[in-house]
């Protein structure tokens, strides 16, 4: 079976994704590298997640499909910018690597991790979730189709059980 991270990249290629906006996260590292290496995609490193939401709106205005990669802690930064997506009925796909849940060590990740699905749903974003590698390809492919066919906003939450908890030295 292929690596689930490569499955995501294959889904992007299949869907004709042209722009990959991201704020770096370890769970997305391989995907970010592959997007940068691709001739079909432009990967753009941003300083805050709300810029990625706005950038994808601009991409769609210009005829490009894009995706946003971020960590759950970044979801809180996007809330007001998601009103742009809702008001204008822009399609949106974001892949969110989860922190603050399964196996978390860093207390400070917990509040945003725990509230991420609630924040997204209140902002009008439908949440899909993956906790097993074999779920990823189908879930991401479905999210991409749903968003671009129906002008909807979808977040795929990649669970910490899937990604693997970040290892810290024992305190």
């Amino acid at each position: 079976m292929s690596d689930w991270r490569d499955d995501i990249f294959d889904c992007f290629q299949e869907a004709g994704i042209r722009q990959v906006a991201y704020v770096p996260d370890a769970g997305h590292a391989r995907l970010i590298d592959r997007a940068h290496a691709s001739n079909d995609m432009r990967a753009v490193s941003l300083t805050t997640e709300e810029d990625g939401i706005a950038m994808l709106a601009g991409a769609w205005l210009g005829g490009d499909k894009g995706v946003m990669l971020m960590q759950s802690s970044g979801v809180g930064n996007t809330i007001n910018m998601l009103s742009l997506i809702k008001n204008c009925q822009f399609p949106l796909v974001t892949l969110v690597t989860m922190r603050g849940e399964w196996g978390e060590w860093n207390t400070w990740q917990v509040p945003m991790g725990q509230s991420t699905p609630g924040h997204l749903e209140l902002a009008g974003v439908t949440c899909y979730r993956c906790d097993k590698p074999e779920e990823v390809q189908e879930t991401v492919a479905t999210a991409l189709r749903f968003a671009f066919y129906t002008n909807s906003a979808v977040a795929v939450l990649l669970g910490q059980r899937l990604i693997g908890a970040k290892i810290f030295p024992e305190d």
Partner: protein
Amino acid sequence: MAALLKRREIVAKLLADRGEDLLVVPGLGQPCYDCFAAGDDPRTFYLWGAMGGAVPVALGLAIAQPEKRVLVITGDGEMLMGLGSLTAAAAEALPNLAICVLDNERYGETGQQQTVTGRGTNLSAIAAGAGFGTTKLVTDAADVAEGVRLCREATGPVFVAFKVDDAPEAAAIPPKDGAFLKTRFRQAVVGKI
């Protein structure tokens, strides 16, 4: 410093003879009204909210439409909320992207409170520090034509701030239905909904 330039005179020059190859992203508030007053166009995507989003919207648009000029026309307050986006816009080095800030040193929509550009913050210097190769701060009427030329023609990314009068202008209210604005823009630029 006296801010004597008139924002609508500048915007009229920025958008004169715009044709089909100029795509405009006005930031929320006065810049939307200024652009509408200069003449509505489906290739103008008015932002009625999304404060701080004008530059990143233009970034995605400029990547998608490399053959067209993409011009942000925004205010100092909106730009200050999205300063970080200048770093990405500079790093992507898009030759078709220009950013114009109409700097009246005020939050015009909320009661004319002073912004930090009236207390020493220099937006064009910030843009230069972010990596913009072409930047200009226009404070004098004699430099307006050059500022406009940079916005319309110079190889991007370009950043020009104009210090403008803070006097209110006549109402000019563009459409605010976001789905309509998106759809007419895509019809005009991409040829599909």
